[in-house]
C-alpha cells in the first residue's frame, strides 16, 4: 500500500512538503488530479500517479500545464474535488485558462499548486507567482512547512467550495523539498463520479457573460477578504513594540532569529498564511501601537506594498520597510544569517554575522549528461556532420540543455518550453547562419508542435532535432504520449512523433539511432546539405534514456569498454565527447593515459565507434 494511504489519522510521519500536499488532498477526499511534471512540483504528481492505481482517484500526466488546468477545471465544474499542480513557469502556460476560470468558478473544490523556485535551483527564472493571485483575483494560501502544507491543502478545498472559486496554493522549493514532522488527519474516500449541469449563461464566457462574471468575481473577492481577516492561517504572536510581517518559509527564519537574538519580548510577528485577498483589517489591527515594521518575504515586495497601501488609507505613518535600500533583496531565497543581519540593521541591534572563509578557487563540478546518454551521441553527430561549418543552436528545456557546457556546446538560445522551434524559425528569417534546433520528446508534445506548424506555414528554414529518449527524463521519468517502453513490455506509442511531424506538414523527416554513430553522421549530413531544398527538416534521434531503460526492462548490462595500448593520446574522446566515464590519468612516471571507469561506463559503444583504441570487454559482476 502507498505510504500516504497506509498511515492512520493522528500518527506522525516525516513528509516532504509535496507529500504533505498530496496527503492533505486525500484527507479532503480528492477525486481528480492533473499535472505536467516540473521541479519542484514533480513529486505531487508522482505520488498521485502511484496512489491512483490503488484507490478510485483519477490522475493524469497531462501534455502541458494549460491542458492540465482545463482538464481539472472540467472535473471541478462537475462537482469533483480536484487538484492541478505545476512549477511556477507552468502557470504561465496555464495562465490563459486561469484568468477566465477565475470568472467561471467551480462547484467541487479546485486547488491549483504553483511551486515557485526562488534561487532558480532548477528553473529558467524566479518569478513571484503571488502576483497571479492578484492578477486573477483568486485566493491564495502559502504554507511555511510540511504540516501547514497538509493543513492548508485540506482547508483550501473547503475554501474553494464555499466560495465556488479555485484556490492557489503557492509554495517555494524549500517547502516542496523539505521533510518535516507531520501529524496526519483522517482520509476521506474520493467521490466516484461527478455530474455536470448545463448552465451556458454562467459557463460559456462570451462577452455578455464575462461582464457579469467579472462583477461576481469582485463580490467573491470581497467576501474572501473577510475570510482572510479571520483565517486561522493568519496569526499574530509575541510581544513588544516592533513588528515583523512574514509568510511562507521566511517565517521559520524569523522565529529562529528572534530566539537567537533574544528578542522575544520586543518583537511581535504577524504570519500571513492566506496572503490574498490581503487581510487589511487584521494587518491594521496589528500595526496599531507598533513603532516600526519589517516585512520579511522572499522575492517581490508583495505583502509590503499592500501593507503600505492599507496603512496609508487609514492614516498610519509608522515606518514599514522591506525591500528598499537593499535591506532585503528581491532576488534568491533567504537564509537565516541574512534575516538576522537585516533585523539587526533595521531594529538597530548588535549582531555580528559569522566570519566566513572565502576559501580557495576550486575546480567546478557542473552537472553533466550521464555516461551512455544518447543526447551526447546526437550532439556529437550533429557537430561532426557540420564539419568546419557552424550553426545557431536554439535549445529547449530538459536534460539535453546540459549540451550548453563544453565540450558539446550545442546551445545558443533558450527562453522556455517550446522556444527552440519557434525561435529557430525566427533566426532563419532574421539572419544567414544555418539553424539547428534541439527539443526533447516530452517538451515537443508540451509546446513544440504549435511552433512546428507555424514554421511550415511561414516557410521557415531550419533543421529541428527531436531528442526522443522515450520519457520525461529530467523530472524523474514520467510518461508522455510517445512512450513505448513500459514495465509490461514494449508497446506502440499512443501518439507517434514521426506521424505528428508529418501531420504538421513536414516532408523532410529522418529517424536516426544516435548510438549508431557513423550512420547517424552520414544521414544528418545529407539532411543538412539539403540547403537547395529550403524549409523545415526534422531529424528524430531515437534512443531510450539508459537510466529509464534499465529501470523499466531490468536488463543487466553485459559489456563495458576499455582503452587499449593503441591509444595515441589524441584526446578526441575527452575533447569532443565529454563522457563522464573517461578519465585522464598520469602514472608514477608522469606518463599520461586515458582510462574508462567501469562503474560508470554504460556500454553504449559510442566511443568505440569513434576510436580504434577503445574495445569492449565483459562487465565483471
Amino acid at each position, binding site marked *: 500500500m502507498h505510504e500516504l494511504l497506509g498511515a492512520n489519522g493522528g500518527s506522525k*510521519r*516525516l513528509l*516532504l512538503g509535496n507529500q504533505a500536499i498530496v496527503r492533505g488532498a486525500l484527507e479532503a477526499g480528492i477525486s481528480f488530479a492533473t499535472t505536467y511534471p516540473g*521541479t*519542484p512540483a*514533480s*513529486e505531487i504528481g508522482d505520488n498521485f500517479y502511484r496512489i491512483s492505481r490503488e484507490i478510485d482517484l483519477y490522475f493524469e500526466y497531462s501534455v502541458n500545464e494549460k491542458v492540465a488546468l482545463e482538464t481539472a477545471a472540467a472535473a471541478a465544474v462537475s462537482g469533483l474535488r480536484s487538484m492541478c499542480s505545476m512549477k511556477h513557469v507552468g502557470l504561465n502556460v496555464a495562465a490563459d485558462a486561469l484568468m477566465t476560470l477565475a470568472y467561471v468558478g467551480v462547484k467541487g473544490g479546485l486547488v491549483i499548486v504553483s511551486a515557485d523556485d526562488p534561487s532558480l*535551483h*532548477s528553473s529558467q527564472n524566479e518569478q513571484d507567482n503571488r502576483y497571479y493571485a492578484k492578477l486573477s483575483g483568486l485566493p491564495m494560501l502559502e504554507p511555511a*512547512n510540511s504540516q501547514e502544507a497538509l493543513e492548508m491543502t485540506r482547508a483550501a478545498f473547503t475554501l474553494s467550495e464555499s466560495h465556488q472559486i479555485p484556490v492557489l496554493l503557492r509554495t517555494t*522549493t*524549500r517547502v516542496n*523539498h*523539505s*521533510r*518535516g*514532522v507531520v501529524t496526519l488527519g483522517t482520509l476521506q474516500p474520493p467521490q466516484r463520479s461527478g455530474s455536470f449541469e448545463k448552465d451556458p449563461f454562467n459557463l460559456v464566457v462570451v462577452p455578455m457573460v464575462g461582464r457579469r462574471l467579472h462583477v461576481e468575481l469582485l463580490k467573491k473577492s470581497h467576501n474572501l477578504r473577510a475570510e482572510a481577516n479571520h483565517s486561522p492561517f493568519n496569526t499574530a504572536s509575541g510581544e513588544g513594540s516592533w513588528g515583523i510581517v512574514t509568510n511562507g*518559509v521566511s517565517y*521559520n*527564519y524569523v*522565529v*529562529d532569529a528572534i*530566539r537567537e537574538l533574544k528578542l522575544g519580548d520586543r518583537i511581535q510577528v504577524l504570519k500571513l498564511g492566506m496572503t490574498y485577498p490581503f487581510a487589511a483589517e487584521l494587518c491594521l489591527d496589528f500595526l496599531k501601537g507598533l513603532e516600526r515594521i519589517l516585512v520579511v518575504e522572499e522575492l517581490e515586495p508583495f505583502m509590503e506594498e499592500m501593507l503600505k497601501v492599507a496603512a496609508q488609507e487609514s492614516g498610519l505613518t509608522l515606518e514599514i520597510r522591506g525591500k528598499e535600500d537593499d535591506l532585503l533583496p528581491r532576488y534568491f*531565497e*533567504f*537564509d*537565516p*544569517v*541574512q534575516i538576522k543581519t537585516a533585523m539587526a540593521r533595521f531594529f538597530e541591534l548588535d549582531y555580528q*554575522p*559569522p*566570519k*566566513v*572563509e*572565502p*576559501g*580557495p578557487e*576550486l*575546480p*567546478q*563540478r*557542473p*552537472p*553533466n*549528461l*550521464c555516461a551512455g546518454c544518447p543526447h551526447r551521441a546526437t550532439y556529437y553527430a550533429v557537430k561532426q556532420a557540420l564539419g568546419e561549418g557552424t550553426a545557431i543552436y536554439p535549445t529547449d528545456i530538459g*536534460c539535453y540543455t*546540459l549540451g550548453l557546457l563544453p*565540450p558539446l556546446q550545442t546551445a545558443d538560445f533558450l527562453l522556455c518550453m517550446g522556444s527552440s522551434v519557434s525561435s529557430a524559425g525566427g533566426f532563419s528569417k532574421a539572419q544567414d547562419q544555418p539553424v539547428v534546433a534541439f527539443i526533447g520528446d516530452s517538451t515537443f508534445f508540451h509546446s513544440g508542435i504549435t511552433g512546428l506548424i507555424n514554421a511550415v506555414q511561414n516557410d521557415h528554414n531550419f533543421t529541428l532535432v527531436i531528442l526522443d529518449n522515450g520519457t520525461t527524463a*529530467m*523530472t524523474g521519468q514520467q510518461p508522455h504520449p510517445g512512450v513505448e517502453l513500459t514495465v509490461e513490455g514494449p508497446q506502440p506509442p499512443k501518439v507517434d512523433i514521426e506521424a505528428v511531424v508529418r501531420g504538421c506538414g513536414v516532408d523532410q523527416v529522418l529517424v536516426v539511432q544516435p548510438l549508431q554513430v557513423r550512420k547517424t553522421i552520414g544521414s544528418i549530413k545529407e539532411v543538412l546539405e539539403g540547403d537547395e531544398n529550403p524549409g523545415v527538416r526534422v531529424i528524430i534521434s531515437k534512443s531510450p534514456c539508459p537510466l529509464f531503460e534499465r529501470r523499466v526492462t531490468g536488463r543487466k548490462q553485459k559489456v563495458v569498454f576499455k582503452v587499449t595500448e593503441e591509444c595515441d593520446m589524441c584526446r578526441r574522446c*575527452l*575533447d569532443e565527447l*565529454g563522457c*563522464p566515464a*573517461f*578519465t*585522464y590519468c598520469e602514472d608514477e612516471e608522469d606518463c*599520461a593515459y586515458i582510462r574508462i571507469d567501469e*562503474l560508470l561506463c554504460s556500454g553504449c559503444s559510442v566511443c568505440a565507434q569513434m576510436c580504434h583504441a577503445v574495445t569492449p570487454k565483459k562487465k565483471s559482476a
Partner: protein
Amino acid sequence: MEVEGWAVWPRGSCMDSWRIFFTGVGGQGTLLATRILGEAALLTDVQVVVSEIHGMAQRGGVVESAVVMGKVLSPVVSDGEADVLMAFEPLEALRALRKCSAHSLVIANTSPISPFAVSSGKVQYPDVSEMMRTVSGHVGKLIALNARSLARGAGSELAVNMVLLGTLMRQERLPFGREPVETVIKTRTRKPFVEINLEAFDLGFQVV
C-alpha cells in the same frame, strides 16, 4: 585517517539545536543519509526538518542537503552556522568549508570523485591531504576517513553514506544514539542491502 584539533563542542552539553550540513556528488546517497537521520529523529521524538534539493543537481553535480534538529526551524543552513559538516567527497568538503565555524565537527570521506574539468585533464585535482589540512585548520574537529574503502569492505561501494552515518553517531553529539539510526536502516533501506548497510554503518562507527 587523521584526527586533529578537537575543540570543545560549541555550546557544551546544553545544546538545544543541531544543524548538520551534507554535501556530496550526485549518486553518492547523501539524500538517503539525510532522510535516515530525519526518520531517526522522528522515532525519538526530536523535532526535525530535512532539506533537500532535487532536479538539476543529480546529473553528477554537487548535491547539498541539511538536517536541522531541536529548536531550530529554518531548513537552510547559513554560511558559518553548521554544527556538523558531512562531506561525502574531499573536494566538496573544502568547497563547503564556508558552512563551518571554529566549532564545527567535520566528517569527510577522503576518496575523491573527479569533476569533469579534472577527468578531462584540463585542471589538476587538489591534493587531498592538503585540502584536509586546510579544513582542519578552520574547524573544531575533523575526522577524515576513506569511507569508500570501508564501504567496499562491507560489501558495496555504494554504502559510503552508511559508513559516514556510523562515524557521525560514534561522536555522540546528537540527541539520540546509534540504535534509532540502525532501526531506520533496517526498516527504510532496500531489503537486499540491509545487511551491507548495517555492516557499513558499524565499520563507520568504529572510526574515532
